[in-house]
């Protein structure tokens, strides 16, 4: 009897401890989320602020800054440039990165370990180094500084991201799937398109989206390699030297919205594949 009652005592104490713990966790998480999202909230809020100055309290609701965006040709051109660069850099890096990851996963060759490290190195390399070295290389081989040069630069820097992601997925894919495919008479080509690719599709899409985002707001490499063309982050950065304008808040808000849409799309895509697993 006494044993049992002291047991329940202890259990209730544990429960209340757990509750306290839960509250402190919640508090911590709120703090972290606030730290992450407060700046974005401020950005969005001020993009609708009637006054040009960034003072509190805000002085009324307006869509003026968004209308101004629509008539800012330089900004629109910069946006198009950014999309062009990000799309091409993503496509290029996927076309090189996916086969590279498959090679790493499947084929044993001398120096494989070194090759892996070399491919991953650019992740650790500051963008400024990649930018400068590419600038020197392009100058040396007479490749004009241009958006295309930026694309090549981005693709190089992003290769590590794609290879890492796709390689990780391939490692979790049983080797026997590809063997079974070959066993059933499929050529290497057929195995890639009918078995390997469908099973790493989500990793490829995920890596592609990440690459797109990283390329879209990249500054250091772009700074060295672009000629006279401006990308959106470069444009924002250059106008910011004249102070933060409400237009910047507006374009920032638009980027946030587009990012959220992209994130939702990627989550949906990922779920479609891995949903009913076990």
């Amino acid at each position, binding site marked *: 009897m006494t044993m049992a009652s002291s047991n329940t005592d202890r259990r209730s104490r544990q429960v209340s401890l757990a509750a306290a713990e839960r509250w402190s966790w919640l508090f911590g998480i709120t703090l972290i989320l606030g730290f992450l999202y407060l700046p974005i909230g401020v950005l969005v809020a001020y993009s609708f602020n009637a006054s040009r100055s960034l003072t509190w309290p805000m002085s009324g609701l307006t869509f003026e800054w968004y209308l101004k965006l629509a008539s800012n040709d330089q900004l629109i051109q910069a946006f198009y440039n950014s999309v062009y660069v990000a799309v091409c850099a993503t496509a290029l890096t996927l076309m090189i990165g996916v086969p590279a990851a498959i090679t790493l996963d499947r084929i044993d060759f001398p120096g494989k370990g070194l090759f892996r490290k070399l491919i991953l190195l650019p992740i650790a390399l500051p963008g400024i180094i990649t930018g400068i070295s590419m600038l020197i290389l392009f100058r040396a081989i007479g490749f004009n500084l241009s958006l295309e040069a930026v694309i090549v630069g981005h693709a190089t820097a992003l290769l590590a991201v794609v290879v890492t992601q796709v390689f990780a997925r391939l490692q979790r894919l*049983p080797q*026997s*799937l590809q*063997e*079974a*495919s*070959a*066993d*059933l*008479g*499929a*050529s290497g080509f*057929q195995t890639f398109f*009918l*078995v390997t690719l*469908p*099973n790493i599709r989500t990793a490829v899409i995920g890596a592609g989206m990440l690459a797109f985002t990283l390329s879209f707001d990249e500054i250091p490499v772009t700074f060295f390699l672009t000629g006279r063309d401006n990308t959106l982050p470069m444009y924002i950065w250059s106008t910011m030297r004249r102070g933060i304008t409400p237009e910047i808040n507006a374009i920032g808000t638009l980027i946030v919205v587009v990012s959220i849409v992209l994130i939702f799309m990627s989550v949906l895509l990922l779920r479609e594949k891995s949903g*009913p*697993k*076990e």
Partner: protein
Amino acid sequence: MTRIIEIENLTKVFGDVVGVDDISLDVEEGEFITLLGPSGCGKSTLLRMIGGFEDPTHGRIFLDGQDVTNIPASKRAVNMVFQDYALFPHLSVGRNVGFGLRVAGVAKRDVIEKSREALALVGLEDRFDARPHMLSGGQRQRVALARAIVRRPRVLLLDEPLSALDANLREQMQVELKHLHTKVGLTFILVTHDQTEALTMSDRVVVMRNGRIVESGSPQELYESPKTGYVAGFIGSTNLFRSRVEIVCGAPMINCFGQSLIAPAAVASISGQEALFGFRPEKASLVSGGKGKQTNTLRGSLAEVLYHGQSARLVVDLGPDRVVIDLQITDVIGASGLPQVGDAVALSIESHKIMLLQDEVAA
């Protein structure tokens, strides 16, 4: 009977591990052959070389008289059932089964029809549109089988196909595999470490150890008259002992843990030499207390009784070592008629039931 597979001096070395060590083996058309051995003895490696997934270090493989040693897996008329089934998770059951036909460019309608037939053969025609993850382990196993036989390969390779199933299902699948073998009439090469599985299903069992073949033969041959101590101990159990052979009054006598036994007459040819002998636990019988003077008896005390229902295993302490005997529990020897632990017992073994074995003791 025609030879469908000939393996000549096949060797596979991984770094400094010898996976398969100079194996030669012929397989007859239509045979159900099992490679049996403990984990790591090279069964899978041998099977994978036949399938074309592993390049031999030395040796050659012939399929239907043709050297296929350097022909890739995709071009060999053999198919494999993988240990983890290797079903394509992104394809329906029907498309999994039809995969081999599809990549071979077979017309879509025929692909569907033949996949349905193959699924019907394993009793899963109604799961054509299901995804592999929706199936139970046993059903996945059947899909893997259907997928491997849909193209009617010359040889079907099965790597521990039942090891992922629970005991009941495993027994049921053993029977079904055997039926399937008869129904489709293909040559089956199966790998297992489970002796019961090997004995139940195979026409011929090849016992392997350390990358080599120790012995091969029909399940009956290997059980009733194993040639090596290794096989005697690996398939079923055997009381093993070494002894010198001496001729006493014209009969070959051997010594089992200090007690004399008359060996089979043939043993006389190695008189004076030492050899390995053994007898199966169920071949010995219990001599009821002091009645009559039996020949070939071993006397000791009962150390342990393991009751199994229809039979019981008695562990008898002979002094230097122990032997086991299995008794059928019949109306005559009821469970209550079993001697008690500590009782003095005598057991008798007829000479012709003592096996002369080659010198490889089970590790």
